[in-house]
């Protein structure tokens, strides 16, 4: 039996003037074709990113001090947009495909790295805070202490069921990594932030730095629920 787990479908950086600075698109698993393809086309991802600006604006009135907006909105039952705003008004958006990846939950030894990470998260050994909720649904809640095999089983069942959701906090590493990549970009003396979002102006250029793009690519591919550092 295989189970779908969330993956990053798109990472976007939106400038101060609501202009797109960077868009990275990641393929999702398509069970019909048994292949990885992006779930939407680039134009649709652009539209998705721009639609998050509305939510940022709507929420900015009572925004959190940290700039972490958490879930902005879910576009449908598969895609959900999470957001983060730096104190300079640069917005980072992560669009998560809730069924973007597939893990073989049958054999515990033969799964990929992402499945292992998930199992660790669900099992409660690495992140106890997460285990409580995922086990809460099943009857084996208290038994998680008893043995790791029981914990793994419950984790699998949690993944298999619809309730294998996502917490806002699980996206924090993504934003942290995106922000540090952006900071590294700003440290580049040849990068002029005003060129990309002129003060009081409109629009702005997009980020062309290859290093930044690679960093985004790495973040988007490496993230999976339960990952704490990227």
């Amino acid at each position, binding site marked *: 039996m295989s189970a779908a787990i969330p993956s990053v479908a798109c990472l976007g950086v939106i400038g101060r*003037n*609501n*202009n*797109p600075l960077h868009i990275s698109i990641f393929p999702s698993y398509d069970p*019909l074709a048994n292949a990885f393809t992006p779930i939407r086309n*680039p*134009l649709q991802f*652009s*539209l998705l990113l*721009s*639609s998050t*600006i*509305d*939510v940022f*604006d*709507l929420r900015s009135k009572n925004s959190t001090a940290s700039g972490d907006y958490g*879930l*902005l*909105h*879910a*576009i*449908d*039952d*598969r895609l*959900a947009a999470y957001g983060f705003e730096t104190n300079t008004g640069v917005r980072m958006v992560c669009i*998560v495909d*809730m069924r973007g990846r597939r893990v073989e939950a049958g054999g515990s030894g033969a799964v990929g790295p992402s499945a292992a990470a998930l199992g660790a998260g669900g099992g409660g050994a690495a992140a106890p805070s*997460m285990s*409580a*909720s*995922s086990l*809460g*649904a099943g009857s084996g809640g208290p038994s998680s202490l008893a043995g790791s095999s029981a914990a793994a089983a419950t984790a699998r069942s*949690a993944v298999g069921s*619809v*309730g*294998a*959701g*996502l*917490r806002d906090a699980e996206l924090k590493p993504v934003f942290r990594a995106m922000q540090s990549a952006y900071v590294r970009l700003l440290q580049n003396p040849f990068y002029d932030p005003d060129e990309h979002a002129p*003060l*009081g102006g*409109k*629009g*702005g250029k997009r980020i062309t730095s290859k290093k930044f793009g690679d960093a985004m690519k790495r973040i988007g591919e490496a993230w999976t629920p339960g990952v704490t550092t990227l």
Partner: protein
Amino acid sequence: MDGYPLGSLDHNVPLLVVSGLSSSHDQPEQPPKAKGKANGEGVLLRSDLPPLEGKEASFLESFFERVNERGKSWTVMTREEPYRVRVKTVGRSFTLPPRRATLPETIEPLTTAPVLHSPFSPLSPSSALYPDGLMNAEWIRKHQEEVPSVFICFHTLTSDLKTATLQDNRLKADLNGIRATLLESGYKTRLVVIILGDQEARATLTAEVIQDRLEYIRRGTGLDPKSIFYIPSQDTQVELKRVMDSILTLLYNTAIEYYRDLGRHARKKRSRGIVPQPTLPPTSGTSQTLSLPDWNFRYEFKSAIFAEFRQEIDAAVRSFEQAYEILLGQDVLDIIPSWSPRWNEARLLADIISIRCLRLHLWMGQTSLAVRRWQAHRDRIGDFVDRRGRGTNNYGWQAWESRWAMVMANLIELVQVPGLGPMTMTIFLPPEKALFGERLQPWELLHHTGYWYRIAARHLGARRALALRIPDDDRGAPDASPASRVASKAIRYDTYMCPPPHEEYPLNGTGVNHAQLIIDCLLNARSQFQARKQHRIAAEISLECAREMATMKSWNEVLAMLRPLWEDKSFRSEWWLDISEDILWVMRRAAAETGRADIVVAIDWELMDKRYTRKQNWHYDLSKSLDGVSSTTKPFITISDDLASSFVAASFAFRSKEGRAGETCLAQLSLKSDAHQVAAPVTLSSIRIEFEGHLKPITIAHDSSAPSTNSLGEPTSVSAVPLTERLPESVKEGDEKEDRDEDKDQVGVDDGPQNQGNEKDAYLTGTCDLTLKPGHRRVLEMDIPLREPGQVSASRVILTYKADAYELDYTLSLSELGKLGAWYVHGLAKPRLSRPDGHILQIQPRPPKMKLALVEPMDQYYANEPIPLRISLLNEEHDAANVKLDVRIVGKTIPRFRVDAGEHKREVDAAEEESQVTGLTLGRVASSSSMEVSIYLDPAPAPTVYDIEIQADYHLESDAATPIFQVLPVHLNVVNAFEANYDLMPRLHPDAWPSLFDYEDVQDLTEGEVIPAKGLAQQWCLVCHYASFATEELDVVGLDLLVTGVTPGGRCQVVNQPEFSADGMPVAPQKMYEARFDLVAQKATLDDRHPVAIDLAFAVRWRRRRQRQQQQPTDGESGTVNVTTMTVGQYMVLGTEPRVLASVLHSSPEQAGLVRLDITIENPSSHFLTFGLVMEPSDAFAFSGPKQTTMHLLPMSRRTKTYRLLPLVRGVFIRPGLVVRDKYFQKVLRVIPTEGMKIDKDGLLVWVPLAPEG
């Protein structure tokens, strides 16, 4: 929600039937044949009593109608709501559905008596469910609409006592009849009687009588006391409503009880655990009957519905979920073959149960649970359809998916989920408390309906895509194809709640209009997003809508949908290029189809920009823009950069930040084409640059013959454009223009058109090659003549493009603040960044070369002297000038002054604060010649400060248009030349005092003109110490003491003052000088006892020394004597107090220093006074005279006592120890010294001069 059978999803609330309110609702008397022919007769409840009439009846009818309407609502029933019921009003008769189904007539008579079942049961052959159907909506409808929980009869209580018993008996019989029919039918419907008392009953019948009669009726009919109500006639309808409300609240409980009984019955049947046998074993079809799990499903479903009737949400959810599990379990749906119609029926039931569960969850506020339930149902059904049905990869599944999303949206709207309305601006709800800490899917937070409609639209799109893939064989009508094919089609296509393939996408004919369905969905979604200010997502939906409309070829709608997006520049202004590009292409197509040339051209202009991805096979040529666009006339199109962005970037820069009027300034206009490389070069026909401020617009026309400065190779070409200035023809001469300007200033804003006309006339023109190649930057360098001072900024540039099919004016704004002005140089591609705001030029006024100067200014000007100022004008311009002079003086008080410029003179009177002479024509001043103007100010009475501004307005004869002015400010500080302080000292008046008794001096008062003073006289000496505060030495030619005021009755005159020579006395600055004036004060008569106040002024007559020396020979004004008058102040003299004056008289030299000291005591009072004099001996002198004596003084008299002193010392002051004491008051009088004496605190001092030599 439309596709589900009527009544299957209604919010179930107790049904009440109200009879006897009006006859209009009476059912037709015919038995319900259409419905129940096979099922047998229904149960008819009827009464012969006439229905109620009148106001109250009609009010009650409308009241029940409102209650019924409320009962249909899907909102949650709160605790505050006392009841929610559906009410059916009928006349006096009502038919209940038959309880038992009849046997079909075709069946042969059976040997045994058949066991008959309900007509809705699958056991009855007449039922649609027979023999193996599970359940249908008919059954729910029966309970919701046909079988009431309470049957209410309205009757009246007659007040006519004669017929009362008869009427009551009839009522009793009637009720008994109904009751018997109900009992017989087997329905457990409660019977309730409501008796209305009329107005008369209230008046004539006592409560006891009514009570008795009601009791009689109740007993006679066997009703329990809770089922009979009496409503006395109410005064107001509000009262009646209140009473009815409370009755319905009571009845509501009865009704709930009724449904509880039914639910209990269903549970009881389930717990029996047996499969009931149908009335007749099935003979046709599969001959299959329902199994035990099927029956259990039925019972669970029924108890769930009854729980919902009772509003017991928890119980309803529990039963529904059990029914759902049974249905989707392995015993029910799993064994139904997918080709059977029962398969779809079972799916429908699963849907109905899920929808009802969702609604219950939403009622309980379990929004996240509801979404989870929604997803679970979809996944489960999807799984089933994949495993057992026709798979999910067909249009039928997508149709259901979109239906399922719509169901959720409709539910949210109908249930009115709190906190999710458009006003709350919430996008999604937080999870309910029960799920708070859980890991939730993001979608499990209930989002507003816009999202749900959008999902529905998405699935509709997928449905269309799949429908379009239906092979042609399946698209034909079924009668046209062989039966086997029809059968295969039935197997291959999922037609659950959607049309079969030949209707979905027929070979010929229209079929399902998917686009319209999608648009409807999207518009619903869009209004939701717009209401929550999610404008971007709304715009995205508009775009999707437009694409759908484009597939339907309704181009006008496409334009209407996209035009707002295009106009408010959404996405474009924020540089979402791919999105805006998409919008632009869709819109261009629509505009081209509808013949909107302006939009087509504007979009083409925009799409030339290489920021957008290049479309293959597109011409990118503006001249071909309107190819294929039908247009009757040649359009003239005007667009600006705030509507459509441009592939031409324009910037304007002045070479320098400041310029001067009358000079020229270099400026550059740079036009950069950012078009695609493949695009055709654009040749503009002209360019017009407009400015804000006093600079005329520049028009540059295209001239292909102009030498092309460089080839294609260089990315930047700089070409100098010579400008020719065309002055407005109406203005010919400078003077005229000036006059007109003045006029304009006076008239103000009114003459706008004229002004504009002038501006239109005056402009600068030039020609240049205006072809813009892609990626090429063309820089036009111009030398602009500057005329008027002020700030000038380039505001916009208008590019005119003329094609064969149209003309275009494109306006670009140049006034972008903070932009760095770039300056291009020949041969260099990169500009030099010169400065921010390069498009702004500060034009300074033309520098004046007229020199204004003061001739021989004085170091210092003094008060009380006339001030002459001489000003010289020296024209250093290269040309003769016409000059006018303005003189403006500001100060506290401005004296009269005169401006003298040869033949032109002007005088201005004294004024406060400010005074001026304007526009004094000086005439023509030739180049490098000079002219002198004098200003004379009258003497200032006191020190003051003047600010004088002398302004020369002129214009050169060669350039009359440019006004020039030069200013000379002069600051005059006028100070006092002298300051002085004063001392008034008493002296002994030499004359004898007049006697009171001197009759000889008495004169006739009527005779004399001037009456000589007869009163007491005193002599005083005023000592003035004055000093010059001037900066130079002055000549004082005279000093005067002026008596400016004396109290009436007194006289005062100066008897002695210092004399000066005609040349005067030089007075050095800052040095003290002394002057003494003697004056005599006298009263007119002796009778006057009042003291006299005298006011004195000290006047210095002086003149400037240098002035005299230099100007005496030439000018009569020399030696102008100025008089500076200083007030001394007021002194009181001739008081009535006695005083003692000491005077000293030195003897002649031969008498060897003998000194006579006279002590004079004056008694101006009218009392007799006695004084004691004591003279003490001293070492410094010897004296003769009384050592101690007494003096008596009569009123108005004075006496003198003389001492002779022989000083023993020389050259020092001696101190005679003289004490004068008033004998009566025992008060020592001060001895006042006169000339040659002084006084200190110890007493009198007398100067003894040195002995003469020899």
